[in-house]
C-alpha cells in the first residue's frame, strides 16, 4: 500500500464521534469477552496452585471427587508403606489422611451454599501449600476445632473466628483463619481428621496425599496400582493435576456460555462498525475517486479503509482490556461443579487473555470493515468523481 499511514490516522481522528461510538461498542464486547476468559483462567489458576507438584493424591477410582472417594484404614496403612512414599527421620510416612465432607451455610449475599470441611493429619501442614495462620491460632489436634480459609470468611455469614458451627452431631469452634497461597484450600475449613471420623462415626478416609520420593514417577505408580489387586480400585494422581481437573467442568461451562454470549454481542458491534465504515466511505466518495485518478490502486484503497476499521477495533480492544484489568482487584466465589463446594477465585489478566482479546477485536475490525472497504475499492473512478 502506498497511501501514507498518516492519511488513515487523520481520517480516523477526523470522524471522532462515529469512531468513538464504534470504539465504545467494541470496548464493551471485548470487556465481556476478556472478563469471561479471566474468570475461567482465575478458576484454573486457583485450582492449579492447590497442592504441590511433589505430592500424590490417592482416590477411589469410581469417585467423582474427594467427597465420594472412600479409602479404608487397612488400604491406607498399606499405601503408607509403599516405597515411593517419602518417610521422615523416624520412618513415618509423609502422608496426610484426609476426610472430606460437605456442609452448608448461609452466604453473606443471601442463599445457602456448600462448603468443604477437610479433616487432615498433622503431616498436612508440612507437605501442602504453606499454611499461614493470619488470625487466631491453629486448631488443636484432639479437639473439635476448625480453622477457616480466608476466602470463606469473606463469602459466608457467621464463619469467622469465635463462631460455632453445628455438624456431625456436635458443635465446632472456629479458632483461626488461614491463608494458603491463594489456593483452593483457602475455600475450605480444616480440622483434625480423627475428630471428623469420630463425629461421623466413620473409620474410612476420603483421600490420601503423600510426598513422593524424588525419583518416583506418577505413571509408574499408576501401573503399579493397576497391577496390584489390593490397590487396583484406587488411583494415584499428581496433586496439582488432580485439583486442576476438578476445575475443568466449571471452566468449560463458563467459557462456552461466555463465549457464546460475546460472539452474539460481537455481531452487534461488527454491524455497528460496518455502518460507521459505510458512512465513512459514502462521505469520502470524491476523495476515493481523486486518489484513484492520481494513480492509487484499488488494493491501496481497500487496505486504507480496512486499516482504519482495524485501528478503531484495536482501540476498542485496548479500552475493553483496560476495563477488564480492573476486575483483577476483585475476587468472587461460586460453586465449583467439580467438587460441589464453594470456590473463591480472582480474575487474572494473563498474556493469553490479552492476546486472545486483541485477536478478537482485530477480527471484529476486519469483518466490520471488509465490506465497506471492498465497496470503496470497487467504485469506478468516474462515478466516484461525479
Amino acid at each position, binding site marked *: 500500500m502506498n497511501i*501514507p499511514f498518516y*492519511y488513515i490516522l487523520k481520517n480516523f481522528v*477526523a470522524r471522532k464521534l462515529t469512531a468513538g461510538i464504534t470504539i465504545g461498542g467494541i470496548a464493551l464486547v471485548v470487556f465481556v469477552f476478556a472478563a469471561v476468559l479471566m474468570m475461567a483462567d482465575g478458576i484454573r489458576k486457583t485450582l492449579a496452585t492447590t497442592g504441590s507438584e511433589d505430592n500424590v493424591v490417592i482416590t477411589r477410582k469410581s469417585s467423582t471427587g474427594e467427597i465420594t472417594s472412600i479409602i479404608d484404614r487397612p488400604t491406607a496403612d498399606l499405601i503408607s508403606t509403599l516405597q515411593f512414599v517419602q518417610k521422615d527421620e523416624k520412618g513415618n510416612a509423609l502422608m496426610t489422611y484426609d476426610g472430606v465432607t460437605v456442609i452448608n451455610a448461609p452466604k453473606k449475599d443471601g442463599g445457602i451454599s456448600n462448603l468443604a470441611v477437610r479433616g487432615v493429619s498433622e503431616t498436612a501442614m508440612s507437605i501442602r501449600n504453606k499454611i499461614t495462620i493470619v488470625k487466631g491460632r491453629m486448631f488443636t489436634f484432639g479437639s473439635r476445632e476448625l480453622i477457616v480459609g480466608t476466602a470463606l470468611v469473606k463469602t459466608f455469614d457467621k464463619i469467622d473466628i469465635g463462631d460455632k458451627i453445628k455438624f456431625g452431631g456436635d458443635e465446632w469452634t472456629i479458632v483461626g483463619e488461614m491463608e494458603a497461597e491463594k489456593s483452593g484450600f483457602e475455600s475450605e475449613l480444616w480440622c483434625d481428621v480423627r475428630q471428623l471420623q469420630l463425629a461421623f462415626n466413620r473409620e474410612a478416609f476420603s483421600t490420601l496425599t503423600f510426598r513422593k520420593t524424588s525419583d518416583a514417577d506418577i505413571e509408574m505408580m499408576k501401573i503399579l496400582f493397576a497391577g496390584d489387586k489390593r490397590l487396583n480400585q484406587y488411583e494415584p494422581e499428581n496433586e496439582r493435576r488432580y485439583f486442576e481437573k476438578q476445575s475443568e467442568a466449571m471452566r468449560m461451562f463458563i467459557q462456552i456460555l461466555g463465549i457464546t454470549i460475546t460472539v452474539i454481542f460481537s455481531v452487534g458491534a461488527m454491524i455497528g462498525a460496518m455502518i460507521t465504515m459505510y458512512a465513512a466511505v459514502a462521505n469520502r466518495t470524491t476523495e476515493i*475517486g481523486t486518489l484513484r485518478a*492520481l*494513480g*492509487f490502486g484499488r488494493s491501496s484503497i481497500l487496505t486504507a479503509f480496512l486499516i482504519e476499521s482495524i485501528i478503531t477495533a484495536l482501540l476498542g480492544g485496548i479500552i475493553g482490556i483496560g476495563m477488564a484489568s480492573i476486575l483483577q482487584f476483585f475476587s468472587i466465589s461460586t460453586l465449583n461443579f467439580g467438587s460441589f463446594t464453594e470456590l473463591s477465585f480472582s480474575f487474572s489478566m494473563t498474556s493469553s487473555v490479552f492476546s486472545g482479546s486483541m485477536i478478537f477485536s482485530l477480527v471484529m475490525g476486519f469483518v466490520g470493515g471488509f465490506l465497506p472497504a471492498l465497496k470503496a475499492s470497487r467504485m469506478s473512478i*468516474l462515478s466516484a468523481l461525479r
Partner: protein
Amino acid sequence: MSALISISHLTKTYKREKQEITVLKDLSIDIEQGDFVALMGPSGSGKTTLLNIIAGIDRPTQGEVMIAGTNIGVLTETELAKWRSRHIGFIFQFYNLIPVLTAFENVELPLMLTPLSKSERRRQVELALSVVGLADRMDHYPRQLSGGQEQRVAIARAIASDPDIFVADEPTGDLDRVSAEEILTLLERLNKEFGKTIVMVTHDPSAANRARIIHHLEKGDLIPQGQS
C-alpha cells in the same frame, strides 16, 4: 514527429438501461507537445468525456488514443493507474483536495507513488508550492484556504510529480474573477515557462482566450477549425 496526443476515430458510448447514448462520435484530434488547448462547447457535448479519456480515467469504446507513444486504450487497469501517475496532472473544478491533509501533505500525495525518498519528496513539494506562491501555507488545511488558494494547492499537487500533460475540467468554474485570473496566469506560466501541455475544458470565453488553441465540440464531435 507525431503529436503528443493523437486521437483517431474515437467513439464513446454509454449504456443506460438498454439504451445506448453516443457521447463522442468518430472524433479525431492531434495535440502537440507544448500546446495549451481549450475545449469549449454546450453542456452535454462530451467535453468532460473527451478529457477523461485523454487523462486515462475513462476508456474509448472505439478508436485509438495514442499519448506519448502509448496506446492507452489497451493498458490494463493497473498499468493505466501507473501511467496516469507518471504522465497526467489533474486539476478539478472543485479542487478535490483531501480535507484531512495539509497543503503540504496533499501535494506530497502523488509523490507517494514515486520511488523518491522522503527528503526528495519534501524538496519537490516545497518547489511546487513556491511555484504557485503558497510556500507559506504549507501547514494549512484546505478549509483554512480560499477557493483560489485551494485551486493553487491542487495545481501544486498536479505539478509535484512533474507530468507532461495537465488536464483541467473547468478549473475556474467555481472561482471569482480575480482568483480565476490568478489560476489562468498560473496555467499560462506552466505552459510557457515549463513547456507543459495543457488540455482545459471551459465555458468561459475569456478563460479559453488564454489558451493557444480553442476547439469547439458539438454533439460528440469537433467543429472544424475556423468555423466557430
